[in-house]
């Protein structure tokens, strides 16, 4: 192989030409662990293409020099500097021109995609003639720009629909979801999907063969041509069901740019302008960085759990155990007898068999989830989580037994949501070792986990608990012990206020509609039904201490405890929720309902329950789904008053 560095000034790209005359361009962004398309990287790519124009190779293959993946996308840090529409247009223009140039080169090109290939990374790959996907679980392709409130303006809106048809392409662009290597091949996004052992030879063969690309089926070509308007109107309706235009302009812009402007955002400067001007994109980028901050917690610790012991096979305990097993840990799940554990195993099997297509992988997960009625697993566990019913005496007795059996260096945690850790730990020989690791329901869908420190808690144990939460790919939020911690503490007064509104005569559906319009993923009344009216009663007593709302008390006394009993504020039939029609929402209702939440969040920051306002925003967004486009409750509050 002859190595032919085109230019000594290249920091990020390395170009080699092999004996067959194929050029291999390897991106290895300097000073980073993942590749992203910063302006410097793009500038170097442009120079690289200049160089190849002068002496065209037989073919050009793009690959990554990073173990982490191909290219994660644009450099999101650069988005934070988009304060004027001109800057937005300039950013779009840079990638649009460069990738158009790449798409037009005379020699065949291929992107060898191994690991993540997202956003601008996929747009680069789409500008290549061929895309070869490496068949590994970590290989994921997608255009998640919409999740940051922006659009895939570097050719994604043009080339993805061309390649896989507009329906699949819009689905990817409007939801931001990613697909794996084999699905990429099925959709026609990838020309082939190969194991890593043959990826280099497959890449070379594909480029040298230089066959015409497979065209999408006729129907897809029609949908991407004469029938565009039809697809667009269907897509707009679908988006409208999930996101309102005034909150989330980007998905609407994606549809318009694809349908009316041939995927060229530059042809619709007014749309770019509206996106850059709306606070949504800025707030969503802010949320992205908040998430990165949560992800950075626990990095300092080298702790790595191998075995987890969960006591309590109810919904929470069972789901925590199932989640840990799926994340590769060996889990022992304890409860009083196999009959109590079996439903949790069945739930785990049902949940993972839907999501894990490979039968062997599914079997591995289920093999790691070990029923343990006698609690033998505690002895060898690295992390022990108590998730039994909320009763101080029962939990104390259990924690005491556990402490006597577990390793001295094991993390001992409670998943309590309403009891005081200070009370639970009094029975322990080493009370400082008990921490809270508080998951939210449903575990598989709620990314946030509160890591709770009572006064004098062992910092090492908190570190380990935080590292464990990261290990299982959840977002750890450090909080101080206080009733309801952060998330439940802010939800309590919000749900209470919503129920007061119902007491005043508003239909539950009307109250919920007000908050859905505000941008919440679920109305507060439906949330009460999900949480359970009994839990709401108990929490109300311990958190608020106030008289329970009449509407809650009546239903509670009638035994209507919410979704779990089939009836609460709403009716829950076979998979369907009967809510009744919402009436017209009185002006200012949303502001009134959200106010107690905002105030409580502010209060908790002042009290030091959570370290700063940013973390409070992160916690409330990832723990409750609080309208992400607002950037979080305190960010929203600042803007209201700002």
């Amino acid at each position, binding site marked *: 192989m002859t190595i032919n560095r085109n230019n000594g000034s290249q920091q990020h790209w390395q170009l080699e030409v092999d004996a067959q005359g194929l050029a291999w361009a390897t991106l290895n962004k300097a000073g980073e662990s993942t590749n992203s398309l910063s302006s410097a990287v793009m500038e170097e790519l442009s120079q690289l293409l200049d160089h190849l124009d002068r002496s065209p190779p037989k073919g050009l293959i793009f690959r990554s020099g990073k173990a982490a993946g191909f290219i994660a996308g644009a450099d999101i840090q650069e988005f934070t500097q988009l304060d004027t529409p001109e800057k937005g247009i300039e950013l779009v223009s840079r990638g649009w021109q460069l990738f158009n140039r790449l798409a037009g080169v005379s020699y065949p090109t291929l992107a060898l995609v191994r690991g993540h290939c997202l956003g601008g990374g996929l747009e680069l790959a789409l500008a290549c003639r061929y895309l070869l996907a490496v068949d590994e679980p970590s290989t994921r392709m997608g255009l998640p720009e919409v999740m940051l409130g922006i659009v895939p303006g570097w050719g994604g809106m043009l080339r993805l629909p061309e390649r896989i048809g507009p329906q699949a392409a819009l689905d990817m662009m409007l939801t931001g979801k990613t697909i794996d290597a084999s699905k990429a091949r099925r959709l026609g996004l990838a020309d082939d999907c190969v194991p890593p052992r043959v990826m280099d030879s497959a890449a070379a063969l594909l480029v040298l063969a230089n066959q015409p690309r497979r065209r999408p089926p006729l129907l897809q070509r029609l949908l991407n041509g004469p029938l565009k308007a039809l697809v667009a109107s269907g897509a707009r309706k679908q988006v409208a069901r999930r996101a309102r235009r005034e909150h989330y302009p980007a998905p609407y812009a994606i549809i318009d740019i694809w349908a009316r402007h041939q995927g060229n955002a530059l042809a619709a400067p007014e749309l770019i302008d509206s996106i850059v001007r709306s606070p949504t994109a800025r707030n969503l980028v802010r949320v992205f960085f908040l998430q990165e901050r949560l992800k950075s917690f626990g990095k300092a610790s080298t702790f790595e759990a191998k075995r987890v012991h969960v006591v309590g096979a109810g919904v929470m305990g069972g789901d925590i155990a199932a989640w840990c097993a799926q994340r590769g840990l*060996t889990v*022992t799940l304890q409860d009083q007898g*196999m*009959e109590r*554990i*079996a*439903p949790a*195993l*069945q*739930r785990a*099997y049902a949940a993972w*068999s839907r999501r894990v297509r490979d039968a062997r992988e599914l*079997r*591995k997960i*289920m*093999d*790691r989830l*070990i*029923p*343990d009625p*006698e609690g*033998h*697993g505690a*002895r*060898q566990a690295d992390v022990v989580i108590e998730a039994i019913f909320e009763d101080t005496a029962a939990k104390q007795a259990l924690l005491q037994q556990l402490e006597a059996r577990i390793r001295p260096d094991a993390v001992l945690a409670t998943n309590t949501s309403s009891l005081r850790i200070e009370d639970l730990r009094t029975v322990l020989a080493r009370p400082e070792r008990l921490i809270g690791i508080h998951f939210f329901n449903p575990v598989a869908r709620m990314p946030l986990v509160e890591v709770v420190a009572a006064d004098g808690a062992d910092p090492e144990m908190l570190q380990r608990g935080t590292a464990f939460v990261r290990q299982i790919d959840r977002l750890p939020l450090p909080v101080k012990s206080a009733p309801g911690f952060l998330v439940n503490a802010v939800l309590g007064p919000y749900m209470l206020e919503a129920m007061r509104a119902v007491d005043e005569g508003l239909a539950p559906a009307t109250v919920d509609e007000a908050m859905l319009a505000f941008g919440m993923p679920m109305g507060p009344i439906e949330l009460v039904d999900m949480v359970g009216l009994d839990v709401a009663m108990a929490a109300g007593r311990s958190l608020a201490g106030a008289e329970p709302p009449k509407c809650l008390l009546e239903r509670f006394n009638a035994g209507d405890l919410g979704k779990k009993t089939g009836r609460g504020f709403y009716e829950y039939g076979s998979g369907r929720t009967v809510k009744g029609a919402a009436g017209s929402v009185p002006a200012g209702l949303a502001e009134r309902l959200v106010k107690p939440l905002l105030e409580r969040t502010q209060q908790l920051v002042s009290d030091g329950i959570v370290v700063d306002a940013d973390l409070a925003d992160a916690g409330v967004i990832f723990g409750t789904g609080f309208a992400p486009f607002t950037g979080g409750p305190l960010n929203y509050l600042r803007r209201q008053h700002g």
Partner: protein
Amino acid sequence: MGFQPVYVVDGARTPFLKGRNAPGPFAASDLAVQAGRALLIRQPFAPTQLDEVILGCASPSADEVNIARVVALRLGCGNQMPAWTVMRNCASGMQAIDSAIANIQNGRSQLVLAGGVDALSHAPLLYNEAMVRWFGQMMQARTMAKKVAMFARLRPSQLLSPVIGILKGLTDPVIGLLMGQTAENLAWRFAISRQQMDEYSVRSHQRAVAARTAGRLGEIVPVVDARGKVHAEDDGVRADSSLAGLGKLKPFFDRKYGRVTPGNSSQITDGAAWLILASEAAVDQWQLAPLGRITDSQWAGLDPAQMGLGPVHAATPILQRHRLSLDDIDLWEINEAFAAQVLGCLAAWESDEYCREQLGLPGALGALSHDRLNVDGSAIAVGHPVGASGARIVLHLLQALRAAKATRGIAAICIGGGQGGAMLIETISREQAKRENQ
């Protein structure tokens, strides 16, 4: 050099689940994994700290031929764990234990997970030879016309007469007798009546029910299937088993004229049983509290048509080596392949002629009391997942001895093809063992 005792640290088995004319809820490796992981989580060592895994299996399915390795990996024993599958028909599980013993005795291993498994309800139906030829020719038919012609030649009789894998497995390939027919041979030879067999079988059920009620089956760990159903007990055991009921069943192996029925035979069953075997050094290293130790083992061969007498041929040399009589053994487990076969073993020991001519003894060895034999029922009630039974009887014998506060037992099993296996077991405590060694 004498037989260096090997310790049985712990053991567990699945419930034995009766085949009901359809594949059961668990594949063989699923059963071995569920019992194995429940056993391993209660040990002070990690699965990776075993030295090897040995699993007996008479009919591993085509996709897990070395089922021991499949199970070892699924149990989290790690990529470095050597694991091998052994096959000695009905004694495959006992062979696994014996192989573990041998490797511990010669110092290759210190800590071994050994056991047996079979999921007979998953035994395959196989294409007959005519169909196999048809498929072979079909593969070579290149043109559509030739393919159509091939289909025209397909006869429903070829397609609808599969070879039943389990019947093949239960037929002696050398002499062509079904296992049940070898039991008929014993009934004929020792004049064992249908009535005696049925009475014996009812007692097996009654004893199994009593053992369950009294909580003497602690070796069973419940298993959970994909639907969340818990299987906690041997489901072939019948509390309502009666002479009248068994009397209604027709002879199965020698139809019309025979005496052996499904009711006085062991059941076709799915199940797995494991033991953890350890050297003295491993017992000390991990401070284990063994259930007991295995102090001798023996294999023997005999006429395949009399295979049911295998236990007699394997256990007698052990008794002779240790100068023990039948009565010196506190409890016996002789796997109940067939009632006629267990009763045949007792009759052989009571027979002057048999003991002289076949065992080279001066005369009859004596009578083995039913009070010492299969006290908690055996395969007629519990079931006989072929590869697992040898491990089950060793494990249960230890439990039964401990429950009875007795010390010495023999577990013996007959083996299709004309063999027998036996093991001498003691529940002696470790401190006692140490004193003896000094």
